[in-house]
């Protein structure tokens, strides 16, 4: 079981990058957009294919296949301490997303982490995905444009690929940002 309480928890990072499985994610969730309008995130960043390839330290070919068709991954992070979120916040977001006809892909609850993944559209014409991740001190919303190769993901899981490298790079990125940038600043990676 993976535990971490600082910055982006490892597990959440892995889910953000590995399980945000949208296919041709063209749609944006109104629920997430409205939430963003009402609540400026503590941190907001975009991960592009070049950034995602960076985490492939061992140059694993299946990882290249995995991220090859990702156009952009948007991550919005909210520090609960800086916002007046209640225990209902994620529940309300989930309900909003479901009302937009997003379908639940999976839920995960462990060690104070609460992960919900939703996708919009059917297998032939998938339109979007939303990831809602809550930890003890953070709420993370994710949006992915493009698609990931799910069989490649399966192969990576079966092999010796170290997914914690992803968390390491993302955590490092967040630490660097915290040291050198204003917290309210918005950056693209």
């Amino acid at each position, binding site marked *: 079981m993976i535990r971490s309480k600082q910055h982006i928890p490892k597990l959440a990072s892995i889910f953000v990058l590995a399980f945000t*499985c949208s296919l041709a994610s063209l749609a944006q969730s109104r629920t997430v957009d409205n939430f963003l309008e009402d609540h400026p995130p503590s941190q907001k960043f975009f991960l592009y294919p070049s950034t995602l390839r960076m985490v492939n330290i061992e140059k694993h070919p299946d990882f290249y296949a995995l991220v090859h068709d990702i156009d952009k991954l948007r991550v919005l992070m909210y520090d609960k301490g800086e916002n007046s979120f209640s225990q209902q916040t994620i529940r309300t977001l989930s309900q909003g997303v479901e009302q937009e006809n997003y379908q639940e892909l999976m839920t995960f609850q462990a060690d104070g982490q609460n992960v919900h993944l939703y996708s919009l559209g059917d297998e032939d014409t998938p339109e979007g995905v939303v990831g809602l991740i809550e930890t003890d001190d953070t709420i993370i919303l994710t949006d992915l444009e493009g698609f990931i190769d799910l069989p490649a993901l399966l192969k990576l899981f079966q092999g010796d690929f170290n997914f914690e490298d992803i968390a390491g790079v993302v955590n490092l990125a967040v630490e660097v940002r915290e040291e050198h940038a204003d917290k309210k600043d918005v950056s693209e990676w």
Partner: protein
Amino acid sequence: MKRLIIIIAAMQLLALSVNAQNNVLAPLFDKYADDEDFTKVTITSKMFSLFTEFEPEDPETKELTEAVSKLQGLKILASDSVNNARSYFKDATAQVRKGNMEELMSIRDGKDDMLFMIQEEAGKISELVMLVGGEHKFVALSLYGEIDLKQISKISKGMKIDGMKYLENIDNEGDDQE
């Protein structure tokens, strides 16, 4: 009108039976839904259906992808830090044995007991239940859909979810069926 009522009633019964079939452990999962001692995982048919979109080139991955795409759902309840894990295991075992399932195998591995039960109809496995009980460890897993035992071990390796590793024990059983 009568006919319509009968059709609606039949549909409701069908829905109930499908629901029951897919949720042998549902009362258990509901009972501990808010218990923070447990890891809870639910994967829906929607997630599995996304695999149908891909056509991998290498035969092994293709076979695995096809097997995954036929799954309908997965539920896991797991903890490695409960004090009365054996009583959880005993209660869950009793609950599963009450259902219309047959035992696939049971394993004692060190201090851990494992029980695998399946629901089989016309040669097809529609549900696999796995229970693990140890000194402080308890895992209840329900996998449903069209299940290929030969692929279960590979699927479990592919998921890397707490509790799934025990499914790798099915590998030998799958080999026996070949």
